[in-house]
């Protein structure tokens, strides 16, 4: 395999404490190394920014609801130029819900090399993996959803922690999943009857368990199984005025629990798209930011991480396993609504949404995300996401970076809003002059996310021994002054390496790489009861036979990277 030497770039690597120093980065046999021989190909990075490949901890990029978004929005294709195939590239299109090819290419263009699919319905896992397989370049994993799963609800209701863990390990193996995702705990099961759980104390119909018990139970199961990532929650009551209290109550469930794993992960709870959960007020009329309360709490709790879910003020497509929320949303905007409830497991909904800068609620949502990120004391625990495509497409990360790094750029946005005063008045953002550094951006986009995922031994840093995932951006931190240059440079990497292979050469994608699918195979004690329960549910309540349920690795996961864990006691 070719050797490379990336010379004289401004290197940003928070893990090694490298903050913009001019350094050379060497790549050999797919890994970062101390040095390479004279024969190594030299990439001149003088005047450019060098970082490890980006790691996305939460995006909806593959699977059934993503494809519903594509197929039921032909008009979304008209929001972006559809690009013909060229060289190694297939044709690629779509704006808020890009095709799998565009997903791979656009992440690569942003210097990202690893992306986690945020919600995999187990019953549809095969579909998720078919899309992941067809997505070029990037390494991917997927989080199966557990927060409304009948097995989990029953085991937790009976306080059977060991059975919960045994079932989870089985399902991770069946679906080739990477982590435990929990969306609107209990609420989506309630939606099976057209109901919801809007507080963590609302009992789930029939199952008679509360969201609080589900969240706590899943956190404990996660640590019992010593998984790389922590329990990954989208808490109840998303998107509603006054929901910050539900969010704080949910976060407090992690108090006193500490992480158990061999992957360097410190948190036990990751709260996703926390922007959507930081709202004050009681109605849309007195709607206001409570970013301060949320940021303060997360700052104070070392065992919690979060990603933001920045609103980018675009016309986009919302999609979530939070079925009742999507129904609520379509009642508000009267646009098309897709919903799929999944037997024994979960549900989901999809609704287009236009975040207009002229609507003050949207303006406020934009401000709240930035406010949280700028209140962060430790950017390693506040991560860059747009909850793609819910708050905006992932292709806007460079624009979000611009807003985070430039008060001037933020003021221009405020100035463009119809209700500027109202928006400024209801968020702390308008008085903030903090501008994040590239060092902090590197934490939010790779170092912090890799660590929270338990992947810091592979990704997120340029430490010798790690994967040869390196991005070179045409951005000179010493001379750049125009904030627009940030958006431009970080949206189009000059060079990109994935596992030591040159993917982008001088701005052009030249290889589709050798993408891998990450999943976790965790061994637990033999558990005849759980085996019986599984057989019984398949016999009586599933419409697919148990022998046709497992996602066969051979075909759907052609290039797996398996994390083997022993959680037997």
């Amino acid at each position, binding site marked *: 395999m070719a050797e490379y030497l990336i010379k004289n770039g401004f290197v940003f690597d928070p893990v090694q404490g490298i903050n913009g120093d001019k350094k050379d980065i060497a790549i050999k046999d797919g890994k970062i190394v101390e040095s390479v021989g004279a024969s190594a190909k030299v990439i001149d990075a003088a005047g450019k920014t060098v970082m490890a490949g980006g790691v996305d901890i939460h995006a909806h990029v593959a699977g059934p609801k993503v494809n519903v978004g594509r197929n039921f929005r*032909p*008009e*979304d294709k008209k929001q972006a130029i559809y690009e013909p195939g060229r060289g190694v590239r297939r044709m690629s299109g779509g704006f808020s819900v890009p095709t799998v090819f565009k997903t791979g290419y656009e992440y690569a263009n942003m210097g990202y090399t690893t992306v986690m699919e945020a919600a995999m319905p187990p019953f549809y896992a095969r579909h998720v993996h078919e899309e992941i397989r067809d997505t070029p370049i990037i390494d991917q994993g997927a989080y199966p959803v557990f927060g409304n799963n009948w097995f989990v609800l029953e085991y937790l209701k009976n306080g059977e922690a060991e059975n919960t863990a045994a079932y989870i390990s089985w399902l991770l193996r069946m679906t080739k999943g990477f982590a435990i995702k929990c969306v609107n705990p209990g609420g989506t099961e309630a939606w099976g009857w057209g109901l919801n759980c809007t507080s963590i104390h609302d009992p789930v119909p029939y199952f008679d368990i509360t969201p609080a018990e589900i969240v706590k139970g899943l956190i404990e199961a996660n640590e019992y199984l010593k998984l790389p990532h922590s329990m990954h929650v989208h808490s109840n009551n998303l998107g509603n005025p006054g929901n910050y209290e539900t969010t704080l109550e949910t976060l407090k469930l992690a108090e006193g629990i500490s992480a158990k794993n061999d992957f360097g992960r410190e948190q036990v709870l990751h709260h996703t798209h926390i922007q959507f959960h930081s709202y004050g007020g009681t109605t849309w009329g007195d709607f206001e930011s409570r970013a301060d309360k949320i940021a303060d709490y997360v700052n104070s709790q070392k065992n919690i991480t979060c990603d933001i879910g920045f609103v980018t003020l675009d016309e986009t497509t919302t999609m979530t396993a939070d079925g009742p929320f999507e129904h609520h949303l379509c009642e508000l905007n*009267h*646009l*098309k609504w897709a919903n799929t409830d999944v037997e024994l497991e979960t549900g989901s909904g999809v609704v287009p949404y236009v975040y207009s800068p002229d609507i003050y609620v949207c303006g406020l949502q934009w401000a709240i995300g930035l406010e949280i990120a700028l209140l962060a004391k430790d950017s390693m625990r506040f991560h860059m996401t747009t909850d793609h495509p819910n708050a905006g497409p992932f292709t806007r990360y460079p624009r979000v970076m611009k807003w985070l790094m430039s008060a001037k750029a933020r003021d221009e946005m405020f100035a463009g809003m119809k209700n500027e005063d109202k928006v400024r008045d209801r968020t702390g953002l308008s008085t903030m002059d903090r501008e994040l550094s590239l060092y902090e951006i590197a934490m939010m986009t790779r170092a912090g996310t890799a660590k929270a995922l338990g992947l810091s031994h592979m990704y997120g840093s340029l430490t010798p021994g790690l994967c040869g995932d390196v991005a070179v951006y045409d951005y000179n931190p010493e001379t750049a002054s125009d904030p627009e240059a940030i958006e431009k440079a970080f949206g189009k990497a000059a060079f990109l390496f994935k596992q030591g292979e040159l993917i982008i050469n001088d701005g052009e994608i030249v290889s589709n790489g050798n993408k891998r699918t990450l999943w976790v195979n965790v061994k637990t004690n033999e558990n005849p009861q759980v085996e019986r329960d599984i057989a019984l549910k398949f016999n009586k309540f599933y419409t697919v036979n148990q022998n046709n349920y497992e996602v066969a690795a051979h075909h759907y996961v052609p290039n797996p990277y398996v994390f083997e864990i022993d959680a037997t006691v």
Partner: protein
Amino acid sequence: METVTLTIKEQPPLFLEAEVFNPDALASKSAAEIAALPLPMGKTTPVVGDYFTVTGKGGATAAETKVVVNGDLTKVKYIGAHMSAGEVVINGNTDMYVGAWMTGGKITAKGTIGHFAATAMKGGEIIVEGDAGNYLAAAYRGDWRGMQGGRIHVKGNVGSDTGTFMMGGEIVIDGNADVHVMTHADGGKTVIKGNAKSRLGGQMVRGEIYLFGSVDVMMPGFNYVGDVELEVEGVKAKFAEYIGDTGERHPKSKGKLIYGKLYKKK
């Protein structure tokens, strides 16, 4: 105002996509430059000169450019699509997407035009001497934003799905309309001087339909509320007023529900 005249000299084996046959694309171009513009046909890309003789030249801007297209244009799509200003005259029958996504200017079609004309039209004027096809002034697939402004006058008949998802602007049809008029409309106005088939205003939120002739089946969600004297397109007459679609949602204004309206000439 400069004029570009395009005359078809040979019928193509397949359909031509004339995305350049509009004032915006031809402004400030010479006949020679225009003849060299692409005229895609399937996977091949002939140029305008391969199938059309070009005379005259474009004006300095779209507004100062008139495009005249002559001949049998039944295998030519997109004439006047995406235009923002200026004028287009179509001397002969033509195919799909006439004036689609148009935002301004004027199109006069001397013959018949094909389906999907005036898709998502935002402004300007279209006059059709002959008939128009299906989906006149409808939204593009999946979009909830149909015709939003401008005026269309069809002197002949129109096909099905006229004004689907219409939000604004007006359509006047001298002849008859096939099934489904202003389905899902949330504004705008359509006048049918001839007869209508069934499904006028199905799932209509807001908007107005004026019908001079007969309709074979009324939608069950339209209620008769009384007669009104109106002047419509220069015709003074008594109309029976219906409100609907009562099965559909309707916005409130000052506590009162706003309905779609159907006026049927007595």
